[in-house]
């Protein structure tokens, strides 16, 4: 004996974006908080220690923001000109920054005045960073040189002038205290070892480099820049190109890894942030922003995404708290424990096992359909939550009723309010291709049934007019589409030779299908 089979709800794959684990994860942010800065935000850096404040470098100031504060909790403004690249040390206590005048300043987080000033660059310094031993700073300037500084003595240790253009980005290795890289507008990324006098490795990016990034393991290097490419290099194999990604259509300005190291984020002047999987190097998600992006940072645990724009707007997104799950789990805990009792018990050989039949949970409309209560089943799926959020369920039940031959009687005998509800739904959804075939029959039946009472209720009449309007619009639209198709067909006909007739048909097929479905008006 077969059990009752629930109504099959057609899962229609949504065109365009597909829902994956990643989309769900990256969508789990609240609506962004916008903070206006004084100029273009060129660097955002999160403090590596709690409470994870972040430093925002814009114009001639560095603002430190708390996690949820909208006002800066601290400001470093002792700059004569634009400040660049305010970067935390890995213990979160010191902050270094370059500036337009070529000086590098080192601040204590608690203090106001700079602790040290490193003078030596003759042109603006766009990149500074701490080496992982905490006592040295590297910098890159527009004077084509990359320098290494000693913090205690505030002196220059070594200066490499190997680049032939502005040095605009850099990154220090986390595993080796002597290794850092810099990327330059001369299309190269150079890897320096503080123990040697020259660069250890040169990687040809092929375009001016705007951002570089080293993976935490130090084995992989990511570079990005003007050419819209994001390139991943294997450092251990001597700088071999691993993969080249071209997903942006403007200069890529910033790169960032998420806290687990599984995802790579890139921001670009094309207003997009793309998120790549570091295993497959495929885009798994992307964010849209209002203006071109200059800088990007992700807090530990991916709690906050901060994006800086060219127009000085700082966009801060916080992760939605997942309190709901915790609460329900807490509630269930004791019952779960009793439920679990004896679960580990292994039946002995002479034990007689009685299996409990699994109780199947049916939806409300399925229960009603099982007992052939057509009208009530239709009522159940016309409830607003189902009707609004899962119209496919409503349509599936309508189709099932039609299949059983009881749709007409289920639609009949309804009052003004319910007819209004029905007509609203039909008028709204009838133009969706996946629902059209079913809803056209429904609309036919409704007009048939309620024809005698037209004119008695203003609301229902209005809905009928709306339905007419929706269908009229759709017909116009389809006619236009047909025209376009005709034009395309003539084009294809001129392109293709005689023997490729079938190719053309396969291409036009996608469009004809849509039209077929709507032809029965």
């Amino acid at each position, binding site marked *: *004996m077969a059990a009752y089979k629930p109504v099959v709800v057609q899962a229609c794959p949504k065109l365009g974006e597909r829902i994956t684990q*990643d989309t769900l994860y990256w969508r789990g942010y609240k609506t962004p908080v916008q903070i206006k800065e004084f100029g273009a935000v060129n660097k955002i850096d999160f403090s590596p220690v709690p409470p994870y404040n972040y430093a925002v470098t814009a114009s001639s100031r560095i603002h430190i923001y708390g996690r949820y504060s909208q006002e800066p909790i601290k400001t470093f403004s002792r700059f004569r000109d634009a400040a660049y690249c305010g970067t935390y040390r890995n213990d979160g206590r010191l902050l270094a920054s370059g500036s337009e005048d070529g000086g590098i300043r080192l601040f204590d987080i608690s203090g106001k005045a700079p602790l040290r000033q490193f003078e030596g660059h003759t042109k603006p310094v766009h990149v500074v960073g701490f080496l992982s031993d905490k006592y040295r700073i590297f910098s890159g300037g527009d004077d084509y040189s990359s320098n290494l500084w000693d913090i205690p003595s505030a002196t220059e240790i070594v200066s490499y002038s190997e680049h032939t253009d502005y040095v605009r980005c850099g990154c220090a290795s986390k595993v080796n205290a002597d290794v850092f890289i810099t990327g330059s507008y001369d299309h190269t990324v150079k890897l320096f070892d503080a123990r040697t006098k020259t660069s250890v490795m040169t990687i040809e990016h092929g375009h001016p480099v705007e951002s570089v990034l080293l993976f935490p393991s130090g084995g992989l290097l990511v570079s990005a820049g003007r050419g819209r490419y994001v390139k991943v290099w294997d450092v251990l194999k001597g700088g071999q190109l691993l993969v080249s990604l071209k997903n942006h259509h403007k200069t890529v300005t910033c790169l960032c890894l998420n806290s687990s190291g599984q995802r790579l984020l890139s921001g670009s002047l094309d207003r997009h942030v793309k998120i790549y999987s570091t295993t497959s190097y495929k885009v798994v998600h992307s964010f849209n922003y209002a203006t071109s992006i200059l800088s990007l940072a992700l807090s530990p645990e991916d709690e906050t995404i901060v994006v800086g724009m060219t127009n000085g707007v700082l966009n801060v997104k916080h992760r939605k708290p997942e309190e709901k799950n915790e609460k329900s789990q807490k509630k269930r805990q004791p019952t779960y424990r009793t439920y679990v009792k004896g679960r580990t018990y292994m039946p002995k050989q002479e034990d007689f096992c009685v299996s409990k039949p699994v109780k199947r949970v049916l939806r409300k409309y399925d229960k009603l359909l099982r007992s052939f209560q057509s009208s009530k089943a239709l009522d159940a799926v016309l409830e607003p939550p189902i009707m609004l959020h899962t119209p496919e369920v409503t349509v599936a039940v309508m189709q099932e009723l039609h299949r*059983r031959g009881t749709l007409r009687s289920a639609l009949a005998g309804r009052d003004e309010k319910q007819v209004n509800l029905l007509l609203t739904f039909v008028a709204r959804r009838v133009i969706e291709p996946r629902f059209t075939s079913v809803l056209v029959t429904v609309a036919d039946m409704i007009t048939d049934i309620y024809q005698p009472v037209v004119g008695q209720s203003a609301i229902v009449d209005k809905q009928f007019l709306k339905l007419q309007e929706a269908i009229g619009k759709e017909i116009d639209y389809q006619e236009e589409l047909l025209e376009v198709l005709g034009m395309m067909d003539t084009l294809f006909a001129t392109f293709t030779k005689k023997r490729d007739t079938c190719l053309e048909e396969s291409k036009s097929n996608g469009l004809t299908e849509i039209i077929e479905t709507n032809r029965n008006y």
Partner: protein
Amino acid sequence: MVSPGALRVVRCGGSALRGARAVYLLCASGDFVKVYSVNTEETLRLMGGHADLVTGIQLNPHNHMQLYSSSLDGTIKLWDFMDGIPIKTFTVGSKLLALYTPATAEDSVFVVIPKKGERDTFQLVSVKLTKGAGQDLEAKELSVVLDGVGASMKHIAFGRDVAYVVSVKDVNLQVYFFKRKLLNRFSLSTMKTKGGDNHFSCVVCHPTEDCIATGHADGKIRLWRNFHHRKEYTYSTLHWHHDIVMDLAFSMEGTRLLSGGVESVVVQWHNESSCQKDFLPRLGSPIEYISMSSDGALCCTLHTDNRITIINSNLRFSRSIQGLIKSRDVKTGLVVDPRTKALVLNGEPGHLQFYSIQSDQQLFSLDIVQRQYIHQAGLKQSDLVKVAFSAQGTWLATVEESEEVTDPELQLKLWFYHEETQSFQLNTRINTPHDNHITDMCFRDMDELGDDSLILVTTGRDCVFKVWVMVEDTDPEAQQSVSWSCDFVGSYHNYQATNCCFSEDGSLLAVSFEEIVTVWDSLTWDLKCTFCHPPGNIRNICFGRLTCSKYLIGATDYGFLCCWNLLTCALEWSAHLNIVVLQPDPLSEHIAAVSWLSKESSLFVFKPNEPRPIYIQRNLCKEKILLAAFVPRDEPEVISSEKYLWLRKSQLFFLTDTQELMTLSTKSLEERLTPSSKQLAVEENLPVTPFSLLLGKHRRQQAQEDIDLGKPVVRNKQEQASPAVKELLHTPAHVLPSASFLCTIFINSLLISKENKSAEEVADEAEMESEKAEDDSDEEDVTEMEQEDTSHMELLGEMTCKLSKSQEKELRKIRKTDYSWISAF
């Protein structure tokens, strides 16, 4: 020699009823009476002997081991159904349409026969069964009881203690009281119900009270009382069914009434009140008959799709017995599952049945449509129309469509065989793959290449054929790694595509467009050439195989069979034949073609390279053959005659328009029905008694010891403990010596002997060997068994329980007598 033996007659005439202990289920099936075991659902016996449809079976009320059966050939047979032996045959003369054996009537049974001289009028007569010595007796003593009765056996019922008999026909109810010789007629007015049709459909009588229950065509059940009076009779109505009540049955005490109909729901009415009722819904297909066992513990329903469902007394589904399910229309064709070698065709509505030919059992039923089927007339519900398997059986493609002509709701589903769950799982579902009906579908059959080369082609009435390929999902986190999508759409001058077929190596695809066959390159999808041999649309096409792979065969509407040579692109030969079915053998070059000419089907078997057929069988059967399939044999059969060599590697099966499955066989019917399983079945069906428990324990213990000793014992042989014990258990009780004589021997045999030493053993074995030589002459089967067993014993060595020489001899004697007794029959 070659006989079209009906493998299974699908129609289920007659009712099912049970043996006294509710252990056996008897069912009239076509010309046979089948005995099923209730516990294992296995067919224990097939009792054949009637020359025509068996119309009624009833237990002998005076001996519950005997069974009466009546048939359209005009005979009543008395059977011993335990052994499957016909005891007596009574020849009545005219067609027998129903049979009743009420308990009190001595030596006489009641049958329904057509009235002489009048068409469509039937009468209930009582037949005196003469007592005679011979097997074949004449029973000509007929006395008419009732005139103008219904032809179906559901239209007549006998009241309690056979005081009266009730017959219904159209809107009339007749009650005849035997004692008083009184006939009461009641009739319902046809105008009474608005639009409803209140004709009687069935009648049953209460077992203990004077009450008659009748079922009606409008779904009502009426309970009649007080029918002794012509005027003051009363009836009450029970109404649940929305369509005709097919059958009714009272429980043994009469407290419950079961009814069933088209809805395929068994309704149980308590105490004849309409408020208290229980349901057993969704039994799969309309109920035809309901029958209660005589102890009231079980009930069984017979369904229109050739299935028996057994139901517990508390209205729980217990088990079902099913062979080939009869579906309304076999649209899928006969397909052979490459994995199980089972025939695959439409089963229950929306299901695909896998039917094993070897065991005459349904292996499993795959739910394709996955929608609730509503048993109601006039509904257009989607059903399965096309099925295709890939070469290894890993992929299954199915097409379902609703019956609506104008706007068919089409779905193409692709199923992947999941090794772990051992079943097909849905991989891809494509809505409206074509804009119109799909006419044909095939996979590219390539054994040597991997799954990458798998291609599915569908042809549709929307004038295109589509090529579907597997696409690997690029997303690493996706659940499925592959899915199917359309790769190519081809058409030819806007003709409807009707058939498609891949060549054996998969390099060419032939698609027929109405009158034209097109051949496409399967790599580049270029049109290679076209063939046309007017007049007539192409009905079937297929490529030759093996040595004949350069030929393409096509059959047309106007009765032409054409063979084209693909190398020269020219017509090789053609023949004027109205071919209905064209089926290539997958394992040889042979192609079977079935033609339909003036009410008879003929079979032609030919090789494409020569226009002369190898084998012709005219007048294969009277029915139109719709479908055919070659089922590969497990091992090639030894066929001496050259004429039948084409049957060596595979067997040909046909399905006729009356849904009978037939095959061609070189063996006679008796040979094919292997009796080996019967003995086994009886043994398995032994009830659990203390004795069997003792024996089972003994065997298990023995098996355990074998394992403990770590000896290389073949597992399946362990069950046969000792040939003597087995013989003893298989010998009917009445030919055995007295129990007191056997007891000690038997008990001794069960003891584990410890002192058996090697010298003695060797001597024993030598003895056995010589005795075996004698046995060879009279019984072959047994010697085989013994040989197995001796080897077994050698392996077991001293731990085996063995009979002493004298005991062995004793039992052997017993066995010999046993077989001589059987040979007497």
